[in-house]
């Protein structure tokens, strides 16, 4: 009797359960997820498009660690510490195995794939009239340029890579060789130049008072003005890599002249105000206040080591420390902040800091020697940029450029060990000037390159620099040269001249080091000096390996690159130095194993 009752109950329960399952299931599945969007919820309007762009840059920031490690550790300015693991050591010694996480191209393709998806959908949106032509052009060009930049990095490090421009469902589809043939670096460059030349809009997102986009705004206390890739600098770089020197110089010149940086002005050119003479111009110091981006000393105490301007708010060091104010905008073209308020986490504290980080990488002895063999204008036998790029902390040489927002400016202890503030440095005016000089030099304008490298246009094109009260109409300019080499750097009182470039003092002028004595008619010597200057000015900022590869490829001289790396390992007492040199004498060994 009891047994039967229980059986009945069981059957009833089963029916009930089945019933609920069948009826309720539909509803459960129908519920829209709260933290993800479905395909029909995106790309509906310009705001969705902006969100997609912010999203892809967010993902792009995840490449920061790999980008810096690959470009610096493989070159001659960065070295491993005793704490570094085998993966980093292998990179340092050019003995990279296919499973080395730093040699994995997949993270790059993941971002490229996002770009491809966005580009495809932007075109669809345009066809569906979901945003205007202008809105489309600005955004399409931005994402397209970012993709080019990523491919350029892939080419620099992996050499032969598949060039994928279709939106793929998964990254693994890249492996399909029939669809996406592997392109040699040179052909890849052709494709990139061809694509970049078709980008409809080369200026930054408009940010003037009258026309603005939602993309130039403030997020978490950071202005997004320079979050996005600068198309002119990318176009210049691609053409410089390709050997189209005049074309490259033209793009760089447009950038340095602020083409498109002020839409409020009638012709889109930035005019008026001090900012115009300073922004992207490598301008002279404010010797009275020291509120500048130059290596400086307290006025009238220039010969005193204790008066060196060494703080987070003034001078050359502040390039890497200061907040995004007008001075910062004079130097930075592309830089994205890391903050404890949002993801991803800043990877650089762990890489570089010996306080709160793992201290895996340090400046190479060769890099330190570079700075210590320069002489400053006041006779000090070192380049102060070295003091700001690295510092002895607790008896260890520490790369400082990435740590100024993390460490206290005077005690060099973490402000808060849990708040790993910092920045990803991507492009700044000094790099553009060096690249412009490189292009000009190869285009037969060695003296222009000399001026940009050393003490600027005004001084270089002045037979008697320093004399006052002259008529400067016919000096301090290169207006007799064709664009992009025609500069007006005149600075005179009677008649009064303030040429657009009158504040330019060159990279070494800004750094207060004596000019390099180099014959400006010797293109190879000038180029060597430019690459040497890159090591002093832009060390650890993720440019070095590309510079070495580009010049070595151009000259078809593997020794140019191999000797630099050899010299680093030799000075570090690394027993592999000779082996690595022999290896790098073969161009094919410059590239990482490509494994998808």
């Amino acid at each position, binding site marked *: 009797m009891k047994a039967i009752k229980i059986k009945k109950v069981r059957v009833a329960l089963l029916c009930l359960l089945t019933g609920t399952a069948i009826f309720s299931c539909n509803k459960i599945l129908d519920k829209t997820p709260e933290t993800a969007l479905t395909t029909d919820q995106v790309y509906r309007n310009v705001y969705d498009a902006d969100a997609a762009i912010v999203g892809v840059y967010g993902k792009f920031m995840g490449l920061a660690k790999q980008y810096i490690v690959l470009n610096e550790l493989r070159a001659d300015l960065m070295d491993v510490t005793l704490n570094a693991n085998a993966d980093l050591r292998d990179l340092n010694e050019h003995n990279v195995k296919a499973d080395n996480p730093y040699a994995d191209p997949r993270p790059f393709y993941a971002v490229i794939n996002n770009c491809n998806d966005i580009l495809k959908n932007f075109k669809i949106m345009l066809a569906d009239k979901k945003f205007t032509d202008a809105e489309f052009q600005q955004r399409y060009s931005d994402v397209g340029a970012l993709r080019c930049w990523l491919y350029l990095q892939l080419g620099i490090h992996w050499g032969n890579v598949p060039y994928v421009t279709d939106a793929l469902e998964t990254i693994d589809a890249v492996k399909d060789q029939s669809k996406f043939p592997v392109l040699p670096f040179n052909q890849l460059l052709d494709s990139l130049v061809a694509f970049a030349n078709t980008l409809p809009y080369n200026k930054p997102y408009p940010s003037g008072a009258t026309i603005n986009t939602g993309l130039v705004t403030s997020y978490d206390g950071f202005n997004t003005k320079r979050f996005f890739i600068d198309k002119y600098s990318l176009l210049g770089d691609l053409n410089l890599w390709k050997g189209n020197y005049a074309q490259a110089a033209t793009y760089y010149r447009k950038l340095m002249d602020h083409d498109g940086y002020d839409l409020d002005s009638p012709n889109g050119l930035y005019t008026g105000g001090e900012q115009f003479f300073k922004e992207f111009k490598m301008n002279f110091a404010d010797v009275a206040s020291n509120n500048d981006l130059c290596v400086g000393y307290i006025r009238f*105490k220039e010969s005193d*080591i*204790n008066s060196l301007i060494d703080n987070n708010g003034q001078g050359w060091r502040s390039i890497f420390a200061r907040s995004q104010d007008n001075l910062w905008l004079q130097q930075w073209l592309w830089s994205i902040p890391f903050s404890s308020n949002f993801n991803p986490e800043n990877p650089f504290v762990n890489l570089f800091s010996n306080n709160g980080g793992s201290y895996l990488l340090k400046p190479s002895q060769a890099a330190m020697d570079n700075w210590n063999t320069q002489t400053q204008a*006041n*006779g000090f*036998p070192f380049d102060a940029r070295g003091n700001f790029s690295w510092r002895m902390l607790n008896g260890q040489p520490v790369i400082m450029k990435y740590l100024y927002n993390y460490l206290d400016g005077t005690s060099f202890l973490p402000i808060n060990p849990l708040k790993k503030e910092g920045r990803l440095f991507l492009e700044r005016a000094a790099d553009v000037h060096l690249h412009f000089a490189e292009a000009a030099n190869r285009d037969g304008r060695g003296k222009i390159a000399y001026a940009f490298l050393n003490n600027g246009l005004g001084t270089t094109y002045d037979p008697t620099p320093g004399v006052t009260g002259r008529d400067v109409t016919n000096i301090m300019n290169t207006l007799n040269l064709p664009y992009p080499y025609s500069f007006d750097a005149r600075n005179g009182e009677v008649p009064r001249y303030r040429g657009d470039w009158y504040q330019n003092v060159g990279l070494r002028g800004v750094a207060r080091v004596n000019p390099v004595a180099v014959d400006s008619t010797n293109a190879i010597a000038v180029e060597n000096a430019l690459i040497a200057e890159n090591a002093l000015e832009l060390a650890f900022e993720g440019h070095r390996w590309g510079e070495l590869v580009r010049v070595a490829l151009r000259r078809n001289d593997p020794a140019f690159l191999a000797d630099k790396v050899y010299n680093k390992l030799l000075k570090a007492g690394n027993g592999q130095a000779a082996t690595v040199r022999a290896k790098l004498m073969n161009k094919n060994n410059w590239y990482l194993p490509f494994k998808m």
Partner: protein
Amino acid sequence: MLLKKRIQIFAGLVVSALAFTTCNKKWDDHNAITDAAVANNLYQNISKTAGLSKFSQYLVATGYDKIIAGSKTYTVWAPNDAALASLDPAIVLDTAKLKLFVGNHISNQSYLSGGADQRVAMLNGKYNRIGGSTFDSANIVTANLYAANGIYHVIDKFIPRYDNCWEFMKNSSASPLQKAYFLSQDYNFFDASIATQTGVNSLGFPVYDTASGTVKKNHFLEDVLDVNDEKNQYTLILMNDASFTTEYNKLSPWFKTGTVDSTNKLTSFWLTKDLVFKGAFAFAQLPDTLLSVSGVKVPINKPSIIASYKTSNGWVHVMSKVDFTLTYKFPPIYIQGETPTSFATTDRSANTFYRVRYNPVTAQNFSDILMQNYNYANYFIKYLVRNVASMRYNAFWVAVNDVQTTPLWQQRLAIDSSNSAATNLPFVTVAYQNYNEVSLGQLNITNYRNVNLFVMGPTTASSSGGNNSIVVDYIKLVPAF
């Protein structure tokens, strides 16, 4: 139906029975002690080991049997009976001495034989060298015997408890004068952390029983080198009285002071500070020159070594002669220009530059101080030099004028006073870009003391043209004896 049920129950019983019977044994087996050696503690095993009966007796007599039966891990290097037969009966009869002796063969933690050379702390506070199949100078006869709480090795020789270098000096009569000086540096130090607190005074501060907190310390050990420290190794030279007197007389003229006592103290310190060395140098390993802690080269003439003694933390050599070279004993004194003590009272910091420069002569960078156009008569930079021995010094400086070819300014060195003509050295013209040392003349210091040096500028003020300038890289005082 019924049959099936019965079979099922039966089968169940069989399975559970099997499980219980087999499981028990397996479980017991897997962690049962099968090796008798680890069933017992170190003391139990040592006492059962043939040939270690005497050592076991001593373990019991000193109470170490209880310690090595404890729950910590130990290593025992046990001398066998044959070895212990030659042990001095005086040690055996004195429990305190015996305890130190036995404790010299036991360490914390397990040390297997065959390891790398290292010094290991023994339970008596001394360190012995182990490594390979040796324990200090003894050989390990039977290695790596184990017990529940550690390892023991049988060795063929006992290792006496040695005095350390400092203890040896105290117990030795080889160098009475040197010993007297060393002991004169003893002082009593009150250490509140070990003192017994007896109450609280009216201000609320603790009151201590001073006797319980008093520790004996020694200035020489603290200021020069702590050769009483067991952890590290040292070499100490003891000079016999004759040689000590000879060297003392050689040095004492340079320590003229107001009282005999202070001259005595200074001379003795200056002599003995270069008789202690880091590192253990046995007779055979002694080089012909050792570098003392203060960087003085000390000639070691091996035939002058009367005796050498091994200590628990190094070696003591008794010598009949240590012929110090005065130029090594009194190296030149360098005063760096960029570390001034003070300036003339008028503030001229706006004209003062601390510079970094490259010296093509030495091919090295240097730091210096430059004062330019400071517009003040008789301006000076002052340098306080401490503990200057009483002798004559030849003075030099490196003063680099790389700022002006004309006019070439003059500056001079003075001692003790900035305005006494008697002690001023003559003015020297600072040549353009001269990176070499420039001779300035001789200073005569008649008493051992601290000396004020002045680098003085021109006697008339001038606000421009660079006449009023002073530059100093460094000043060098070379003893002229």
